């Protein structure tokens, strides 16, 4: 059984990483929403070039491991001279946490774009025709009819992507960002309280994921159309 002192030591050490996990996770989730939305809109575009780009982007980012993308961004991009000499870009690519946020946002955005695309395609044509018939402008049609309906349709599938993004933050530990998994690895490596560390770190991840899922569920309920 876990003794109190060891538990306290492990727990307080893991808590140190929790902040970074939340920071990387929450920011990348917010950014990925933007990336996903833009890509989904591009996919729906009549312009072949625009929709083709969105399709290739989503295929490439979904077809390669997040770890590879992270290493390309952090170790690869940094070797390009031009990046090193542009302060704004170097600010982004020299920091592990920022690279992790970028990698997760770009990766998760590709998956989210597919979820949103499904949502947009599910909007009944009749609704759009009706909006056109009463003379709504394309912009108004989008934010009054298409977007609200698509979001409601996409939310349940979207919640999976949140869990995947949070799990993705664990990869930040591979580029020297000491978040939850990084601390867990360090503890497992030298104090041999392997199972205890796993259980506590696992519970913390469960807690984060569960809280985020509850939030999505609340949003879902809030958006529900009462008939």
């Amino acid at each position, binding site marked *: 059984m876990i003794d109190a002192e060891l538990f306290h030591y492990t727990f307080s050490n893991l808590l140190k990483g929790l902040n970074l996990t939340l920071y990387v996770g929450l920011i990348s989730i917010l950014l990925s929403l933007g990336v996903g939305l833009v890509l989904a809109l591009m996919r729906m575009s009549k312009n072949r070039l625009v929709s083709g780009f969105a399709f290739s982007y989503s295929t490439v980012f979904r077809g*390669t491991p997040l770890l*590879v993308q992270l290493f390309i961004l952090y170790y690869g*991009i940094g070797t390009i001279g031009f990046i090193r000499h542009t302060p704004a870009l170097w600010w982004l690519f020299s920091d592990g946490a920022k690279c992790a946020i970028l990698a997760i946002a770009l990766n998760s955005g590709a998956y989210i774009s597919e979820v949103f695309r499904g949502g947009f395609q599910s909007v009944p044509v009749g609704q759009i025709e009706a909006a056109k018939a009463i003379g709504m402008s394309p912009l108004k049609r989008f934010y009054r009819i298409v977007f609200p309906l698509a979001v409601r349709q996409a939310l349940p599938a979207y919640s999976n992507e949140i869990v995947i993004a949070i799990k993705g933050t*664990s990869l930040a530990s591979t580029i020297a960002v000491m978040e939850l998994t990084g601390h867990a690895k360090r503890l497992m490596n030298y104090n041999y309280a*392997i199972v205890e560390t796993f259980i506590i770190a696992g519970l913390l*991840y469960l807690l984060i994921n569960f809280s985020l899922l509850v939030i999505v569920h609340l949003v879902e309920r809030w958006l529900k159309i009462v008939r």
Partner: protein
Amino acid sequence: MLDTIIRILQEGWGWMLLRGTGMTLLVSILGMALGVVIGITGASIKTNGPLVLRWLVSIYTTITRSIPELLIIYLLFFGTSQAVSDLGALLNWQEGMNRWFPLMVGVLAIGIISGSYSVEVFRGALKAIPEGQIEAAKAIGMPAYKRLFRITVPQMFWYALPGSNNVWQTALKDTALISLVGLVEIMRAAVLGAAATREPLALYLLAGILFFIIGMASQGVFVLAERYFGRGMRAVS
């Protein structure tokens, strides 16, 4: 960029990456196979097992799917390394044990992770088999094992193919994480190459391309398999 890549490939890293590709395929195929076994077992328990076991399967799938893959890999790696090195000392086979240990961890990790997704895939596949067919088989007096091998199993695999494709694609990409405990697959080969040649961008791009090619090729295999095993079946959704 292109001439850098060609130079790196000529310096022997092409061969290294190719061997890594073989290892990636080995660990993902073995891991996926273990996952399918776990999936079928879990799905059978969830459809008609005792309540306590059904609970256990649900706990396993929920926990495994909400905890980072990397954490599970570290648990398996650090959790068994002592036992494995003791066993190696006992059998006087340390060298072999050290060599195969990362592969065993990889197969086990990919099996446990992909298994948690396979449970749901196979549960859906079992449910998709019409009850009437089982009743008809009973009516003409087929014994239970014959019902299983003639009616349930062939159809279950077909219904499970699309979902298994998704599980496979995820499992394939998850194998990149096994590089972090020392298995020399594509990613580890790229890391070693990046350190030796000081060309990380080229090496990681190559690694990404290799994963992409394997993913696309296996996608094709699944499409062909669906067509082959779907002979005489009515299309579902």
